[in-house]
């Protein structure tokens, strides 16, 4: 058949005519939509959406969290603006925390050495160990109802209850030693400080409760040449905090203690502070030599520090010289410095010592994965995720995020006592158990979490002090019954204590400390929220931070 000019014109006209009809566009649209819905492309679950209040319990800071649930599953989280400490902020990892329960490294089976075992076998082994010698329980999040279960269990068996410290709580340890006030009873009164000198502490990078200082800094310091709150960062490298600080003091790595001594000498010699001692033995020239600063720069720093009081120095770990500097500055036990909280009086022993004679050690899931107990005892380790390279004899699967009822005690560095309840929003699978449930299986006389939380709520109600901070603030004294108060706490309200009448305490320090703390090395290495993250794995979306961008270097001990 011969193609004529007329055929060509008909063809062109026909094609043009077809294009002006909806047919090809509808076909294209349908093909596109069809190709968007291949069976292997995951589809979000549809169903009723509701928002529930809870708390992030993956570290001891207990940030307030709004959890969006669809069809009963968490599909997104956000901060709670009304939370008195975290004030609507979360750490970056917190925004992907709702996906953690499906992490490929989620533990679902009991492991004994390299092989699978059962809960019954683990209970028999632990009960046998309890009958053969002393046991130790290590807690990474003291003050909870579960902690109460642990303490009761070890008290009955003449065992020991130990805790693992964070760099923030380690920094408070010297004041506890010098004053007798337990570390859990101390906190930083940042809200009333005018000058904060951070010796390597990542104040803007997840230090303590991430939202507390970042919100404060954003309101009182960010972008101002003469801010209400002066943040001075002493650090060897330009960290995130140093980059945003009012002043960055670049010193040689590990020389923070020398700088603290040099500054204290200037403060005392020039009578810039009321204190008369203790005088550091280090001369100003020696301090300058160690830090890499000039003597004039140290003098300037000392004068700047006291120019706008109250001033407080914050160490990144247990640094005695920086604690002594606070004593010289008058920041220990003073408004705008380190203060005594109203409630906490418990003193916890560290897990670093005193467990070497134990027959068995039980490690709660709240303990950081990289903590290895200094003992040859049989180790029963609870964890929701397997971080790899475990040396524990028993690895026991614990409830994951939002799968367990827990309460939320005061954050470690807070200046005021708080209390909240994080109800279980997801039903835990039958193959997991918390350490408290495990111990209750061995000793049925132990109180349940619900009863302990109820007892604590009753204590708050009887105390008639403080305020319940929810959508609105309600004084505890206005609640008609403990049930009403408990109901609000279960719905996500936070109890906030009244400001204590006296936050003062006295540090007995006659000589400048010369003992180098074992944890002092922390001051030269940056610790931030990803190091403080206690879950053995990171949320999968952390790949955006560590891998799909150049924003941060991947922490090598984690499995994103």
């Amino acid at each position, binding site marked *: 058949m011969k193609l004529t000019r007329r055929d060509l014109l008909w063809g062109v006209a026909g094609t043009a005519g077809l294009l002006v009809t909806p047919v090809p566009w509808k076909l294209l649209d349908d093909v596109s939509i069809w190709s968007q819905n291949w069976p292997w492309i995951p589809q979000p679950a549809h169903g009723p959406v509701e928002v529930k209040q809870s708390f992030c319990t993956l570290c001891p800071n207990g940030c307030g969290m709004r959890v969006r649930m669809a069809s009963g599953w968490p599909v997104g989280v956000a901060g709670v603006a009304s939370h008195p400490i975290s004030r609507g*902020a979360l750490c970056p990892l917190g925004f992907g925390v*709702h996906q953690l329960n*499906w*992490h490929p490294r989620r533990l679902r089976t009991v492991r004994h050495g390299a092989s699978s075992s059962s809960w019954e076998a683990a209970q028999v082994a632990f009960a046998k160990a309890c009958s053969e010698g002393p046991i130790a329980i290590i807690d990474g999040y003291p003050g909870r109802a579960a902690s109460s279960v642990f303490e009761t269990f070890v008290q009955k068996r003449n065992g020991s209850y130990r805790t693992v410290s964070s760099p923030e709580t380690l920094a408070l340890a010297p004041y506890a030693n010098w004053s007798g006030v337990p570390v859990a009873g101390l906190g930083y009164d940042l809200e009333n400080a005018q000058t904060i000198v951070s010796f390597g502490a990542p104040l803007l990078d997840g230090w303590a409760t991430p939202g507390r200082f970042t919100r404060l800094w954003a309101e009182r310091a960010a*972008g101002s040449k003469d801010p209400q709150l002066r943040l001075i960062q002493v650090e060897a490298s330009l960290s*995130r905090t140093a980059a945003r600080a009012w002043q960055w003091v670049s010193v040689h790595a590990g020389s923070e203690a020398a700088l603290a001594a040099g500054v204290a000498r200037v403060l005392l010699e020039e009578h810039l502070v009321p204190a008369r001692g203790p005088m550091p033995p280090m001369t100003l020239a020696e301090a300058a030599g160690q830090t890499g600063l000039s003597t004039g720069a140290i003098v300037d720093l000392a004068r700047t520090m006291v120019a706008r009081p109250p001033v407080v120095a914050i160490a990144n770990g247990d640094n005695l010289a920086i604690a002594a500097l606070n004593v010289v500055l008058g920041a220990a036990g003073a408004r705008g410095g380190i203060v005594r909280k109203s409630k906490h009086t418990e003193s916890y022993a560290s897990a670093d010592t005193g467990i070497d004679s134990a027959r068995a050690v039980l490690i709660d899931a709240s303990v950081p994965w990289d903590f290895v107990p200094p003992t040859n005892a049989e180790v029963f380790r609870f964890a929701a995720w397997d971080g790899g390279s475990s040396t524990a004899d028993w690895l026991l699967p614990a409830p994951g995020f939002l799968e367990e009822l827990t309460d939320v005690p005061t954050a470690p560095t807070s200046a005021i006592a708080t209390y909240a309840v994080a109800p279980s929003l997801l039903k835990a699978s039958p193959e997991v158990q918390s350490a408290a449930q495990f111990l209750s299986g061995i000793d049925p006389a132990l109180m349940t979490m619900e009863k302990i939380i109820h007892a604590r709520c009753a204590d708050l109600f009887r105390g008639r002090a403080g305020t319940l901070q929810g959508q609105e603030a309600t004084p505890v004294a206005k609640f008609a019954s403990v049930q009403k108060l408990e109901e609000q706490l279960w719905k996500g309200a936070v109890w906030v204590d009244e400001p204590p009448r006296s936050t003062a305490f006295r540090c007995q320090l006659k000589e400048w400390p010369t003992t180098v703390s074992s944890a002092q090395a922390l001051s030269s290495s940056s610790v931030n929220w990803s190091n403080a993250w206690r879950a053995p794995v990171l949320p999968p*979306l952390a790949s955006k931070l560590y891998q799909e961008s150049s924003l941060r270097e991947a922490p090598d001990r984690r499995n994103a």
Partner: protein
Amino acid sequence: MNARYGMVIDLDRCTGCGSCMVACAAENNVAPLPQASPRTGITPMLVRKVSNGMEGGAQREVFIPIMCMHCEHETPCVSVCPQQAVEVDKATGIVMQMPQRCLGCRYCMTACPYHARYFNWWDPAWPAGMEKSLNPGVAVRMRGVVEKCNMCHARLHSAMAKAAAAGKREIDPADYVPACVEACPTAAIRFGNLADQNDAVSHEAHSPDAFRLLARLDTEPKVYYKSKEAWVRALAESKSGPGSEVKHG
């Protein structure tokens, strides 16, 4: 609705924490891509670190969150798209990307002066069971299409539905806040209607410290930045500016 939604990002407040990046990915069902690199990943909100180039104590750094700038004028990605898969929403000013129409030619990625567009190199995949954690308001995009920031359009839909249910024509501004804005712990990212002279964001966009990246291209981006630091403001017109360090695809 006749809005021009935009943002003002105060760089003096940004600490480079990355909360906005993770919150954005979670909200928009962006898959974690453990196999990806900065060149092949999908980060509709991307925080970059830029230094002033000095050494020692004189060194300074700033963190610049970069996303689609939602160009208003001669929008480069719109004009090159052969599929009409990109358009500027007349009602909101948001530059919309329609993955159903996208054929993956990546002309738009080449045209975008901010490198704010990302190609789906792999089928979106989550570990087994994790699809239950996906946001039901956002469809998952498949392999072979381009995606970018759409100012959390699903949240706008929710706000509009809420307003409609209440018999209102206009949304409550408090009901429409993108995930990155909500997540920012220092309130460095602010969002609002640039066309509304009473909106605080509109005021900030015209402050002396405000600037737009590559403003000389005259594309009128609706994302503004702010800084009191002169060297930071100078980055805006730098030929090797913050958007040009990493190329995608």
